[in-house]
């Protein structure tokens, strides 16, 4: 159904929040499958409840109804955790999927899908769960469930064994529900006590849900307009309820109606029932569009640059004025730096934003491929700049899919190799100095490098000689060759799948690096080393002729000063001895196609950097020092220049390009 105009402005908010709750719910289900604990069921219940409240306040009634049924099912499970099994988990997941489809349809202003069949299934399962001593028919272990054709689709599977007994949505074995509206006499001098008494009296008749306002507020007399709404699940008739209410003085039963289709669910009000109050008040947050955060950062960055400019200008002021001006500039700088830091902190987002959906994805992929997989995620509360986290969502999912699809062997094959039948995939997030490292490892068969090389040669991407000339590290990086990874038939030959080039590109786009380690028969690790933020970068400033360039310090391995004419030659090109290795030397001026400075006399600096194809030495004229700068993105047409990572403005007002060292030579 289409949202009316007054709710449409909240539609994005609704979609965002509902999706977050559904993702969290999906994650909980995976935990639940491993072992149902009261905590996880409580958490699932809370998420379902929130979705129900949100959908209801947006008037998406079919969505609210489905969420409500899920909530009922989870409530029944809380009472009897022993009945949780794979089948229950499946139905819950189907409901989560269906709810996601609802949310998507709602956002697209399309009619909500019909979920009556799923509703019937939920009701039937609920009936089974609440009936004592009746085991759920045909419990199936998770790992032996047949592969589903489309795990993320909300379609139903073949009718469940018990579906013959279900016909309607309302479950006949649970007591009917009534929606009640109570009004406290405005003249009452103890409205809190009266309201509380009414609640107590009603709860002797059955179970109270969705009490509004919450019980604590009622006790304290905080009842707006004296109106209390609630739902009552009871075996008593409407008349009996009304009779009971008449025994409570100063409280009038304004209306009572059977809940048939949609619960008049309140928006995300906290649960009032004391037995349901779990956890503490969450931190208060507001939602801000990411573009607004980007603009904040731009402005704060420009303020920083402007302050540096003022500082540089202050050097030209007469000596007598300097101290007070310097003091003012220092103060300004401190304030602006503080502001910039806060903007950056506000942008920091935990990795959990993307890793929360992985357990669910892992489960689906594993089922589809008939694998048994345990996914372990650690360090997901480590934070990165929002822009980086957003960029990583797809690559990480992709690596996970590859790990399960191609890394983890089928259970029989694992047994034959003396491995536990259940494969293990780990996403370990760690903070290492100025970087955050995401390592996705599997204990599968590893990458068959020989076959990978063969595939590269067969596809004509490289010649046999070229492949032979590669280092071990470079050979593994062959999985990222575009021509290779998009060819689907190679997937099974090489043991690695589609789109690794896209993963590598995305990681490098945000200033990160990708490393691969593999051990035949033991598994593979993809290591993504990422900067904490996109905005600040530590540079080594170098000059070439009249130009100044910034080299990201993270890519600089060292600096060597030596006389140019004493460099040894190899194949008519100068090389540089650096530690144990001999590195090719490139003139930065010719790489960048800018005029070189006058030839240097005596010692000249060489900067050793990590390129895509290994280390190399850059010949520059002078080293100007180190500086932390605000990185600005390149706009068209500057973004068309290969080898540039960004631009910044130095304190003297001079724009300086920051080089994409990794691709300086290859691009």
């Amino acid at each position, binding site marked *: 159904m289409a949202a009316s105009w007054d709710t449409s402005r909240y539609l994005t908010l609704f979609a965002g929040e509902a999706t977050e709750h559904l993702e969290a719910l999906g994650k909980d289900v995976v935990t639940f499958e491993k072992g149902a604990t009261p905590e996880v069921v409580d958490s699932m219940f809370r998420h379902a409840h929130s979705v129900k409240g949100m959908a209801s306040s947006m008037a998406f009634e079919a969505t609210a109804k489905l969420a409500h049924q899920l909530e009922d099912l989870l409530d029944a499970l809380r009472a009897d955790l022993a009945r949780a099994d794979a089948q229950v988990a499946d139905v819950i997941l189907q409901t989560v999927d269906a709810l996601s489809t609802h949310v998507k349809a709602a956002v697209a202003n399309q009619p909500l899908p019909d979920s009556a069949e799923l509703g019937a299934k939920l009701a039937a399962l609920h009936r089974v769960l609440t009936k004592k001593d009746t085991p759920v028919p045909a419990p199936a272990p998770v790992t032996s469930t047949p592969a589903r054709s489309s795990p993320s689709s909300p379609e139903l599977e073949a009718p469940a064994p018990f579906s013959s007994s279900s016909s309607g949505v309302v479950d006949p074995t649970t007591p009917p529900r009534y929606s009640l509206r109570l009004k406290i006499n405005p003249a009452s001098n103890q409205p809190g006590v009266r309201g509380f008494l009414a609640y107590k009296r009603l709860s002797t008749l059955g179970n109270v849900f969705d009490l509004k306002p919450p019980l604590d507020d009622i006790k304290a007399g905080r009842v707006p307009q004296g109106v209390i709404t609630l739902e009552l699940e009871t075996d008593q008739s409407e008349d009996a309820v009304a009779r009971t209410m008449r025994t409570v003085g100063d409280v009038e039963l304004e209306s009572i109606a059977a809940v048939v289709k949609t619960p008049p669910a309140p928006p995300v009000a906290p649960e009032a029932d004391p037995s349901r109050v779990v956890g503490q008040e969450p931190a208060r947050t507001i939602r801000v569009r990411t573009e607004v955060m980007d603009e904040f950062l731009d402005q704060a960055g420009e303020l920083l640059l402007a302050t540096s400019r003022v500082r540089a200008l202050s050097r030209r002021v007469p000596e007598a004025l300097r101290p007070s001006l310097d003091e003012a500039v220092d103060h300004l700088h401190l304030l602006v730096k503080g502001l910039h830091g806060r903007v950056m902190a506000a942008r920091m987002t935990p990795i959990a934003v993307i890793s929360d959906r992985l357990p669910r994805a892992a489960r689906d992929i594993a089922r589809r491929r008939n694998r048994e997989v345990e996914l372990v995620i650690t360090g997901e509360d480590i934070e990165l700049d929002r822009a980086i986290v957003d960029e990583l969502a797809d690559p990480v999912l992709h690596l996970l899919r590859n790990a399960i699809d191609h890394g983890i062997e089928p259970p029989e094959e694992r047994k034959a190799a003396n491995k536990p039948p259940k494969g293990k995939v780990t996403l370990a997030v760690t903070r290492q100095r100025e970087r955050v490292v995401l390592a996705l490892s599997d204990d599968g068969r590893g990458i068959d490098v020989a076959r990978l090389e063969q595939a590269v040669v067969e596809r004509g991407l490289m010649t046999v000689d070229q492949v032979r000339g590669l280092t071990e590290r470079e050979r593994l990086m062959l999985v990222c060759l575009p021509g290779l990874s998009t060819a689907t038939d190679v997937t099974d030959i090489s043991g690695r799948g589609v789109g690794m080039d896209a993963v590598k590109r995305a990681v490098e786009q945000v200033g990160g690096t990708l490393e691969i380690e593999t051990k035949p028969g033991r598994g593979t690790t993809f290591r993504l080393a990422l900067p904490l933020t996109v905005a600040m970068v530590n540079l080594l400033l170098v000059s070439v002729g009249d130009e100044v360039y910034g080299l990201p310090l993270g890519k600089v391995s060292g600096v060597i000063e030596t006389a140019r004419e004493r460099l040894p030659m190899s194949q008519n090109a100068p090389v540089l001895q650096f530690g144990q290795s001999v590195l090719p030397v490139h003139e930065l001026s010719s790489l960048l196609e800018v005029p070189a400075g006058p030839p240097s006399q005596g010692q000249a600096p060489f900067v050793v950097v990590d390129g895509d194809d290994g280390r190399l030495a850059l010949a520059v004229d002078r080293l100007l020092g180190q500086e932390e700068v605000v990185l600005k993105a390149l706009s*068209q047409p*500057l973004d068309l*220049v290969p080898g540039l990572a960004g631009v910044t403005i130095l304190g003297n007002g001079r724009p300086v390009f920051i080089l994409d060292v990794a691709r300086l030579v290859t691009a």
Partner: protein
Amino acid sequence: MRHVLFRLEKDRYALPLAAIREVVVAPTTWTRVPRSPRAMKGVMNLRGRVVPVVDLRELLEVGPAAGAGQARVMLLDRGRRELGLLIGEVDGIETLEKVGPPAPKASAAVKGLARLGALPVTVLDPDALDATVARAFTTK
């Protein structure tokens, strides 16, 4: 439509007024853009923003400037960014209605020829200018 009239050496050019954000004095030093086509003059710091500037004579391939006549940078409004054009003097704002076909071998950035009194004026197309710059980078 109202146009800004300006000169490259002695030749007269025009761009729609709506496409121009401002005209500033050209800086004395430029930061060169690495690996860029000849027409790319460099980047300048415009109140904290880094703006790419092209030498319009080079871009239109009408030969390099003879003297020190390139004194102004005209900033094209390209939405969230700007493109600077290195030009000579600005003559003023005039309404140009009839724009005839361009000269046979004119750059793709030329929209056509107009007349102002007895003088011919080459009218440029801002979108085509932008595209020509991008093409210069990609085909370099």
